[in-house]
């Protein structure tokens, strides 16, 4: 009589044996209590899984998925332009820094507009007279630049270090 392996038991349950093999297996099954017990143990798991192969997903799942997708899409593709709280501050800081730097250069006499663009400024004396009256203290310029660059450094630090670090930490602790 043939010896049947455990693999044969599963092949028998899956009906993947040939009719001849199946017949032989059943014949042996009727006379071998050990095989019978092994088959009934495997059959329980097989039947339980077969009868419960699919779980029903919660009814609201599709809606939740679509809501998450819509939120994620907005976050991914929506970039506010102009003076919004997130981007506006950087924009204003940038423009102010450029203006202060430009004024400082003019004030220090580094910019000679008549030589750089003769057609643009006809009368250098008019410009000189304007800047004779216009004076910004060096300490104000320095302090303004320090404050602006300090804030910009903080923003960069936040974007590069703090934000990723705290996001990672929150995820690790299970917050969403």
């Amino acid at each position, binding site marked *: 009589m043939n010896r049947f392996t455990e693999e044969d038991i599963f092949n028998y349950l899956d009906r993947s044996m040939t009719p001849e093999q199946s017949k032989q297996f059943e014949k042996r099954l009727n006379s071998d209590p050990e095989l019978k017990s092994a088959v009934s143990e495997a059959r329980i798991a097989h*039947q339980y899984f077969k009868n*419960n192969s699919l779980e029903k*997903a*919660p009814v609201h799942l599709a809606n939740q*998925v*679509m809501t998450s*997708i819509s939120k994620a899409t907005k976050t991914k593709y929506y970039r506010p332009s102009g003076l919004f709280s997130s981007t506006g501050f950087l924009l204003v800081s940038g423009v102010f820094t450029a203006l202060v730097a430009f004024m400082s250069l003019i004030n220090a006499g580094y910019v000679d507009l008549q030589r750089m663009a003769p057609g643009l400024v006809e009368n250098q004396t008019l410009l000189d007279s304007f800047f004779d009256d216009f004076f910004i203290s060096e300490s104000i310029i320095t302090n303004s630049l320090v404050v602006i660059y300090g804030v910009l450094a903080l923003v960069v630090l936040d974007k590069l270090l703090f934000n990723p670090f705290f996001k990672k930490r929150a995820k690790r602790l299970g917050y969403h």
Partner: protein
Amino acid sequence: MDTKIDDSQLIAQVRAGRAAGFRILVARYQDYVYTICYRVLGNREDAEEVTQDAFVKAFNGLGNFQGQSKFSTWIYRIAMNSAISHRRKKKIPVETLEDYKQFDKGEISDMAEYQRLEQKKFLQIALNTMLPDDVSVLTLFYFEELSLEEMSEITGINVTTLKVKLFRARKRLSSALDKILKKEVNSLI
């Protein structure tokens, strides 16, 4: 299950910017994806969360989906990997026999339904004692419409190794279930 529009047409719609097509794909595969997650995680809340994440990941990755494999194979792979990594990362409280006993207090008039619920309960408790890799292989195997080649594509395990893994997993499940049932019988005596 909606069979009017096939998956590739729906994917083309989504790629063209009509996200509503994705809702049909979700409705079509949500039970399968949820089953993979629930079997691996053994907990409904986490399974729901991971199922949702898997679909969002699939939506975001549709641009990279080549269409060489079926959408179902692809989404099952995403779900399986997400569930396994979620279970490894986080200590998940799995449902125990005690959790199910709370529901047993309700009356179920239909005997066949009662038996099915009982089977479901013992099956999940047995699966909760097994390794997530084994659980996912078993779950995919019992989806029935998947061939061993498709299962191999989903799991990334070659067919020969997969057969061995499946055989061992079924053996482990049989013995786990046998232990649980014997324990249950003893507690009733």
